[in-house]
């Protein structure tokens, strides 16, 4: 995992303050994500982890603080700027498009790569069809990678939870992201499913060099696959470092009250 780490920063957040009404979701959070690493964000429930991802994504706009992505500073990101900038994500409570099939859902992930307009779409034969097939080929690679060929045409609403999470990962991967944000990708999965998911995440990181920011509660997984970890509690950063460093940190232990998560 650490072999191909260049010490180049892909994303940096500085002094992020985010609140909703009176609730302070994030207070003065700063950390960075290096290119090619797997960076886990952990912390007790309500610590602000999902909010942090939402800020990176451009869904929430922090009241204060700066985000620097690929060297460019931003005070605020618009969601589709983040998407076309190469940031893709999965969601804590699956956000798949229920009315569509697996294939169509993953194809929507290719949206930023496709551009043929209304006229060509209406005609279908010609440039639109070619574009559709090109992108379909890429999506099929993703489908093969995630081993979900048999559920290609199934409407995602009918799939079991674990497979839905996998399809959501597929949709994110289809966008060929530079930075992949995963919000509890293994929540609600059994051991076998978790092993599969970990394998997919690691392969994505190692083979394609995708930088990954991961929210996860399963400490075993976090220790196994992360390069570095950030710990949040009540909206503040209370520790960061390698998994071993963080595990030994007293603040972290206090925050979790020593409760094991398996």
């Amino acid at each position, binding site marked *: 995992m650490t072999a191909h780490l260049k010490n180049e920063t892909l994303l940096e957040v500085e002094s992020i303050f985010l609140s909703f009404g009176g609730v302070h979701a994030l207070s003065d959070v700063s950390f960075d994500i290096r290119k090619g690493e797997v960076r886990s964000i952990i912390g007790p429930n309500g610590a602000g982890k999902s909010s942090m991802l939402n800020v990176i994504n451009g869904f929430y706009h922090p009241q204060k603080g700066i985000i620097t992505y690929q060297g460019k500073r931003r005070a605020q990101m618009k969601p589709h700027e983040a998407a076309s900038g190469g940031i893709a994500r999965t969601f804590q409570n699956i956000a798949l498009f229920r009315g569509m099939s697996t294939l169509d859902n993953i194809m929507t992930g290719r949206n930023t790569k496709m551009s043929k307009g*209304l006229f060509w779409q*209406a005609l279908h034969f010609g440039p639109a069809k070619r574009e559709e097939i090109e992108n379909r080929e890429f999506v099929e690679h993703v489908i093969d990678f995630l081993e979900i060929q048999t559920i290609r045409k199934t409407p995602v609403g009918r799939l079991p939870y674990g497979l839905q999470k996998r399809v959501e990962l597929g949709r994110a991967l289809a966008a060929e992201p530079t930075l992949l944000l995963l919000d509890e990708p293994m929540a609600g999965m059994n051991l076998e499913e978790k092993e599969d998911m970990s394998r997919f995440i690691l392969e994505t990181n190692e083979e394609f060099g995708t930088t990954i920011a991961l929210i996860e509660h399963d400490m075993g997984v976090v220790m196994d696959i992360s390069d570095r970890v950030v710990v949040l509690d009540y909206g503040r950063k209370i520790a960061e470092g390698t998994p071993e460093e963080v595990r030994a940190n007293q603040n972290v232990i206090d925050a979790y009250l020593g409760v094991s998560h398996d």
Partner: protein
Amino acid sequence: MLYRENGQFKSSYSADQAIFPIAQDRVFVIGILLVAFCGVPFVINEYWANAILIPLLVYALAGLGLNILTGYCGQVSLGTGAFMAVGAYASFKLVGFFPEVNYLILIFFSGLVTAAVGVLFGLPSLRIKGFYLAVATLAAQFFLIWLFNKVGWFYDHSPTGMITVRPIDFFGIRVTGPEATPAAKYLFTLTIIAVLTLAAKNIVRGRIGRSWMAIRDMDIAAELIGIKPLQAKLSAFAVSSFYIGVAGALYFGVYLGSAEPLEAFDINQSFYVLFIIIIGGLGSILGAFLGAAFIVLLPILMKNLMVGGFGVASGTAGHVEILLLGALIIFFLIVEPHGLARLWQIAKEKLRLWPFPH
């Protein structure tokens, strides 16, 4: 054993993406098209054309349009009647200004005008959703109808306030007005609807259609994966309004012959088309046709049954019709919210297994 996919393997993505991947479906549809284009014109008469086929086609087109907006993109609209009016009045004025230009081209431009108006009234959808948006479309509905009623320019200052279609020839064949033959009117309408249906089907299964459905299913997630809500929603309004506008132009020019805004394009019309897509099936191209068939045939059935069969007064038959329509809407929403199209699909799936039970 009739309906099997056995042996029909697709060896290319192109084949997999075809509109009718199963051979039996292709044959069926080609059959229908053959009958529609080559058979019906020879046997059609005034009644069938004017009371059944042409309204069916026109309403199906309107239903297609509304389905694109509401069924595929999830934006509720109660302004369909008004948009049909825009198409009708646009075609009326355009024919007045450019009588020598081909009618088809003028209808196309009427659609474009309606698309522009649709985009304008669709702008609020960027900030509001659900039935709040429905209110915005109601604003369009009431305002536009008032406009067409009040401003004389729209109806060439005719003292009755009505617009009447001029007799128009399409490549030498009369297609509007009392002298047009039923076959001519029918074929003209059919061709337009066939081409537009194909276009709709193409759009819907491609990138733009997917972006519409993504917005419908979860607009926040859609935005977060890079689908621009502005483009998606406004394109839905534009395409939808185009279709509804063309439907309106045909409704006025070929079907009615003359129209008056409060009767032909009022809020009840908006409800009618909404019912078409609910009964036919939201988010389904086929659904628009099934729903239109239903809505057009029901009153005829009712009249024949009740007035002809039971001797009921036609006023009462009208009330029963309204009651039945409402009950059917509720029935469909409860039992099969995906409408007749889903029932059709289920029937086909049963047919695949036939004669085996499962």
